[in-house]
């Protein structure tokens, strides 16, 4: 019995590098040998899907991309899935970025979905407005006068020469907003300065860490729903019936979470054994 207890005590004081090694293994293995666990969409994800599904054909949707390569595994699948859903339903998409890195991410998404998958025409089906510095001032600028803020698009073409920009002067000319966000400026700024004051519905895809901050806005009805991290992205992929990198990442995340729970349990067993022994002595 004491040998078993000693083993648990050793596990309790294990070098953190063993933990890192085990986590690396449990993340890599399911990526190479996928398990294919079923994805069950949550209500918040379904609400986002339903809201976009209900939009009349040809609706003007503003897609704001504000994440960097660091959170690409969480946010990029959301952006891809949303673009797929929007183009499938023949909506008109206007893409803007509040982060400079977001411009690169948005360009990759456009190349993959708009150009390669759906063969959409630039200037007719979608417009890439690009990044402007200013954080929340950009949001306020889009709300008050978009054309003052964006005189040219990301390819340096004049906005006035783009057919899809006819009639687009400010935020109220859009029918829906989706923000794929990883921090500041992002979802909260869109809610506070754009969506809530004007009443234009919005949804957002955020990293798992941000869900706490954003959920009060969802509960209050200021946002129709939220895609919560990679699980949210995987759920959306399941809803649009097109699996992507988020779905394949969920196996790895599932196993990693289970292993972390196991570590926590083992750590507590060791903690109790140590506590009992110190009480005895």
């Amino acid at each position, binding site marked *: 019995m004491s040998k078993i207890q000693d083993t648990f005590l050793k596990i309790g004081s294990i070098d*953190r590098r063993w933990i890192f090694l085990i986590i690396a293994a449990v993340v890599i293995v399911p990526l190479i040998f996928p398990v294919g666990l079923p994805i069950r969409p949550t209500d918040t994800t379904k609400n986002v899907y339903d809201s976009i599904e209900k939009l009349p054909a040809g609706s003007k949707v503003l897609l704001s991309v504000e994440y960097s390569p*660091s959170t690409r595994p969480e946010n990029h699948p959301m952006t891809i899935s949303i673009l797929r859903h929007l183009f499938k339903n023949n909506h008109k998409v206007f893409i803007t970025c509040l982060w400079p890195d977001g411009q690169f991410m948005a360009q990759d998404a456009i190349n993959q979905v708009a150009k390669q998958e759906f063969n959409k025409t630039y200037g007719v089906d979608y417009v890439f407005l690009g990044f402007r510095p200013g954080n929340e001032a950009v949001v306020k600028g889009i709300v008050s006068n978009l054309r003052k803020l964006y005189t040219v698009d990301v390819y340096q073409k004049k906005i006035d020469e783009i057919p899809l920009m006819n009639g687009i002067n400010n935020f109220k000319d859009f029918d829906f907003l989706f923000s794929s966000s990883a921090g*500041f400026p992002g979802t909260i700024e869109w809610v506070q300065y754009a969506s809530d004051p004007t009443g234009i519905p919005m949804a957002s895809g955020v990293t798992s*860490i941000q869900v706490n901050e954003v959920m009060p806005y969802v509960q209050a009805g200021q946002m129709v729903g939220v895609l919560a991290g990679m699980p949210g992205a995987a759920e959306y992929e399941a809803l649009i019936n097109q699996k992507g990198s988020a779905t394949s990442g969920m196996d790895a995340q599932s196993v990693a979470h289970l292993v972390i729970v196991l570590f926590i349990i083992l750590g507590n067993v060791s903690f109790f054994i140590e506590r009992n022994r110190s009480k005895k002595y």
Partner: protein
Amino acid sequence: MKDKQFWLVTGIIAFIFLLYWIMGHPYLYEDRIVMLITMFLMGSTLMYNVRYAQMGGEFYLRPIPGLKAVEEAVGRSTEMGRPILYVPGIQDMDQVETVAGVIVLGHVAKMTARYETSLNVPVSRSIVMKAAREACRESYMIEGRPDMFNEDMVHYLTDDQFAYAAGVNGIMVREKPAACMYMGKFYAESLILAETGNSIGAIQIAGTASQAQIPFFVTACDYTLIGEEFFAASAYLSKKPELIGGVRGQDMIKAAVIVTIIFSIIIMTLYDNTGIGFDVSKLLTIR
């Protein structure tokens, strides 16, 4: 209640606004009047308590372990002959948390000047670098140790979030500071910084109002100032009456908010179920 000057000024402002309202309140968004009155009441509460403290009134502030630990951490660093690492967040001076972080840096700099401990402040924004330098310079001057101040103790690394985290981690692993303080606005890099600090055996004190990062700091750091405690830190460290009065004013406003929430719940429940009363959410919703 005895502050005649306060009541006089408040009365004059209220009277002027009343006149302005009666005259047709030009250029005013009418639907935002509730917010304007609320702001005026909150500001008055703060000012009343600030003046009360300035006139000698004493307030009890509950001890915050994290702030008591700041001096201990500086002392520990002095004994070990190792520097203190101070990270004022990764956002610019337009964020109130960053400004609060620079204020706390000023107090920490006073302690490092007093104990002759070296201070390393890597920053992520150029304007923060300038503000932090001024705060440190002033602190060292006040302590009578301008010779110990070196401009390069506050230095710029990079604007990029993870490049900054990598840079700070490198400083931690190479210089092995005895104390690491994280005071400001943080995002995902918070756990990277805190875990690296933990691995080098430094005492860690964090303070942030970034809601999502508080759990990470609580887990990995020895002491954490959560939300308002961080904003109250300048009052605790300086012990200036006007700042302590401000903290009390904040607490009074919070009590008023709690009472408003409770009353609103009762009124809304009555209104929704029986039709008695009014839709308080319309009154309190400001667009």
